[in-house]
């Protein structure tokens, strides 16, 4: 099919990734590939500093993972103490409002995870950097899990507050569609076997989804106000007292540290898997 491996677009960086001897600045790799990228790559990737090198990244990731997890654990314990004991119960909802401390950070992370995928996908598409593709892929499953967690905790909160587990409220519906977008994104990674190709296809889908997320959000808002406008979500974000705010922030940072730790672990295993794959392929080629 087509011109095969040699053409600029299909240039596969996997062998470099596999050998671990990745050139620090990408100029030398891209020089053969695409003149246009050479002009940008050293400066921009230079700003992304040395971690763009997968070999250095592996070192950084294995060192940073325990710190992320420890930070997540500490903040989680502090936040849970604050949420369950220190913070006052809501004057209207009583103790059920404490679900907020596990629900709101998950919902934030659901959005942040998709934004992360979009940013990493854009970097991967523009600079054809395999590490960005790996980052995007690794964020998908944790992001989807946190989205599902936001939906589940939200419906558990909805039962005592609204009297029902689920309403087709604007925000609930758009988060549900976001979960489906995550699923579609992961499905494309599963369906296409070759990593480089899957990365490009998934990145295109992520960007198309990013364009559509605001449209979906506003269309759903419009749709839900047409049908029912009674169940309005509580809007007490900044007007929250400090005693309720600090456990929330602590939990939010704990979730984010946990997310970062999980993504780092997944990225490392993904890189190792790719190395293994390349070794297998090269062994297969050598065999008669």
């Amino acid at each position, binding site marked *: 099919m087509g011109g095969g491996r040699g053409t600029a677009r299909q240039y596969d960086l996997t062998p470099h990734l596999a050998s671990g001897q990745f050139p620090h600045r990408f100029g030398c790799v891209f020089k053969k590939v695409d003149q246009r990228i050479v002009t940008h790559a050293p400066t921009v990737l230079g700003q992304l500093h040395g971690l763009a090198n997968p070999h250095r990244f592996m070192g950084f990731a294995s060192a940073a993972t325990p710190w992320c997890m420890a930070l997540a654990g500490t903040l989680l314990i502090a936040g849970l103490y604050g949420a369950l004991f220190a913070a006052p119960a809501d004057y209207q909802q009583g103790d059920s409002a404490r679900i907020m401390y596990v629900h709101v950070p998950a919902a934030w992370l659901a959005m942040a995870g998709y934004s992360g995928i979009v940013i990493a996908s854009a970097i991967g598409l523009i600079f054809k950097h395999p590490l960005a593709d790996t980052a995007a892929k690794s964020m998908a499953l944790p992001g989807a899990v946190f989205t599902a967690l936001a939906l589940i905790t939200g419906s558990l909160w909805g039962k005592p507050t609204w009297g029902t587990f689920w309403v087709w409220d604007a925000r609930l519906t758009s988060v549900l569609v976001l979960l489906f977008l995550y699923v579609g994104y992961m499905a494309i990674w599963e369906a296409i076997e070759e990593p480089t190709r899957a990365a490009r296809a998934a990145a295109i889908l992520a960007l198309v989804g990013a364009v559509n997320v605001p449209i*979906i959000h506003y269309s*759903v808002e419009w749709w839900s106000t047409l049908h029912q406008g009674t169940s309005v979500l509580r809007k007490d974000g900044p007007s929250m007292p400090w005693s309720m705010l600090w456990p929330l922030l602590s939990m939010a940072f704990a979730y984010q540290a946990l997310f970062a730790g999980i993504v780092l672990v997944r990225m490392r295993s993904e890189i190792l898997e790719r190395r293994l794959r390349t070794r297998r392929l090269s062994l297969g080629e050598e065999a008669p």
Partner: protein
Amino acid sequence: MRAFWGLVWRDTVLAARIGGGFGLGFGFFALVIALVPLGVGPDPETLRQAAPGLLWLAAILSVLISLDRLFQADFEDGTLDILRLSPMPLELMVLAKVLAHWLTACLPLVLAGPLLCPILGLPVEAMVPTGLTLLAGTPALSLIGAIGAALSVGVRRGGLLIAAICLPLFAPTLIFGAGALKAAVDGTEMLTPLVLLAAQSLFALAIAPWAAAGALRVNMT
């Protein structure tokens, strides 16, 4: 430009002569609609309440099942490679194929879909709004669907992948399509949702050819 219209003509003729063409998509649409009363019950009031959403859901499903042949057949027999080598930009090629898909899969729904209104208990006056909303919204379905079809070209079980990719992205079109039709049935103002529906089609026209062409380049390695 001659190549563009030539490709539109070729795809339309191919679709018309192979695989049922104009009739099949509409046949599926009519079947889905006809099965609804068997599941929901024959009560006219219930059916009328649900009719706008059902008509639009059936339209989305019948577009969805026709999408997997949009690029796949030409990919398998190598036509897509030849088209890619031609001087016509890939984006324009995508647009031509989308136009042919719309003519064969959506235009029959626009023209004949309103005929099914009485089955769902809608008044005869609802026929024109039904056709109008389908006319304004189905281009968005074809265009967004082309992205999904291009992303899953050459993928095993591509049909499932198309559904997983496209259905969430179809949500706004469904909302405004059914919303406009419901407004027309209820006798309220339908212009705003109809214009927003058309806006979605135009917006999809602005991004889909580029996204689909990019996806084709990726998948034709």
